[in-house]
């Protein structure tokens, strides 16, 4: 146990055209999370988001009516740090540097800015120039150049990736908040979708571009009130290695593996005393479907190169060994850079998910290099 809990979750609707500013989305999601925690804005004294979030902390405080912040931080690497935000919040509340920390992420990445489109200038650090000028100018291409090695090493095919997508879209089809609510697909649909990056990613392997906001409230376990529904943060971890300058890392000895996720997994299991067999449900960040394969193997849910068979055997289904991305994932629900997957993890432990897994004791949330394990208080 970390000694910290998530007491509140809140979100806007997920859409392709929110019709309002990202600051309004952030404020709406945050206020909903604060009220869900049984708190008022004046009770918040810490804020954490991702480095790429466009919402200024002070402006958000003003909109929310938060009076004083004594802790704030941002985690690097975009969605890589979705779960790392919770680690920062846990550090703040367990050290006494803050009492109640708001974690948030909000954007219009479809209606105002096409996150997945090629961009003329790298918006990140200068090292991106080593890739952009040669054609690696979208997230899909960045990641596909990593995933291709996995396909070659283990004989995984795009059709294998499609079986994951079919699973995610099945969950999304029964989640009213999901963009792809009531729109499941077949493997044939997947294979008929157009190539985005040949020979790795088809359209249905890619997450969405979404508008929306999600927020969480983290506090110390002994500060919970009667009205909230606390979920224990059993463990949280973040593992970064050098050279991942475009988040996908082209410099591992073996590109068909994911050592940062493996290290994160080791930290989570060491810190929680749990094993992969103790995980009842998993919410795994998938900007693109092959990432699920690499993460399943990094966490030891199956062996290297075995994810295709693991998925084909139905293990990710609601009654399978490891129900995964029960909200529909970032492919099916929305791409709020993985923070919506933390929210789904909270719902699974509370027992309030629309695709509820039976008797959830422990939920893993993985966001690339960071992750957390949620459990009952």
């Amino acid at each position, binding site marked *: 146990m970390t000694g910290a809990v998530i007491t509140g979750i809140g979100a806007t609707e997920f859409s392709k055209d929110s019709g309002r500013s990202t600051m309004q989305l952030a404020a709406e999601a945050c206020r909903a999370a604060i009220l869900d925690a049984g708190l008022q804005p004046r009770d918040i004294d810490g804020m954490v988001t991702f480095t790429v979030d466009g919402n200024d902390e002070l402006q958000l405080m003003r909109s929310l009516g938060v009076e004083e912040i004594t802790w704030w931080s941002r985690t690097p690497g975009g969605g890589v740090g979705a779960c790392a935000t919770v680690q920062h919040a846990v550090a703040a509340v367990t050290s006494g540097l803050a009492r109640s920390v708001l974690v948030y992420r909000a954007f219009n990445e479809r209606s105002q800015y096409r996150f997945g489109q090629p961009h003329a200038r790298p918006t990140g650090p200068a090292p991106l120039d080593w890739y952009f*000028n040669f*054609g690696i100018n979208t997230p899909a291409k960045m990641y596909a150049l990593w995933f291709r090695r996995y396909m070659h090493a283990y004989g995984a095919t795009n059709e294998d990736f499609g079986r994951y997508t079919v699973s995610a879209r099945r969950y999304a089809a029964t989640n009213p908040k999901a963009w792809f609510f009531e729109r499941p697909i077949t493997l044939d649909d997947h294979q008929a979708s157009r190539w985005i990056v040949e*020979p790795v990613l088809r359209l249905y392997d890619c997450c969405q571009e979404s508008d929306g906001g999600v927020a969480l409230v983290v506090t110390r376990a002994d500060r919970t009130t009667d009205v909230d529904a606390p979920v224990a943060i059993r463990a949280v971890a973040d593992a970064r290695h050098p*050279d991942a300058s475009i988040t996908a890392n082209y410099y591992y000895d073996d590109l068909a593996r994911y050592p940062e996720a493996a290290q994160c997994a080791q930290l989570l299991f060491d810190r929680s005393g749990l094993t992969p067999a103790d995980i009842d449900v998993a919410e795994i960040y998938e900007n693109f479907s092959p990432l699920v394969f690499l993460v399943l193997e990094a966490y030891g849910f199956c062996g290297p190169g075995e994810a295709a068979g693991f998925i084909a055997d139905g293990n990710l289904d609601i009654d399978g060994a490891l129900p995964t991305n029960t909200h529909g994932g970032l492919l099916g629900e929305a791409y709020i850079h993985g923070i919506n997957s933390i929210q789904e993890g909270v719902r699974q432990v509370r027992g309030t998910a629309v695709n509820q897994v039976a008797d959830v004791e422990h939920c893993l949330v993985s966001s690339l290099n960071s992750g957390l394990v949620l459990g009952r208080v």
Partner: protein
Amino acid sequence: MTEPTDVRRASQDDQFFWDAAAEGRLVIQRCADCGTLRHPPAPMCGACGSVRWDTADSSGRGRIVSWISSQHPNRPDEEPRVVILVELDEGTRLVSDLLDPADDGPYDDLPVAVEFRDDRGTLTPYFRLRS
């Protein structure tokens, strides 16, 4: 048409690479104290902490570790191209493009050799399959 990605913002830490490229040389940054090679360039050696460095001339030969076809469906590249991750014989890796690919692949593990071509005014290292 895609917008030009004309953004070669050489910094104090990597200007040497493009200076050498302008002479048709592929170089790798090398720690002057412990000899460790590194790419992309960095101001300090992560192995020993030295800020002293020189360069090693690469053989320009390597193999393809990974590759993709880069052809965006609704905002195409100026020309479709095969992007490759090359591991040089010296051990460092870099991203580049494959010149004149004869077929649709696969290109995994195939040997390549460097060939410099002009890219919007900058002599740039690309690679070609070799037998």
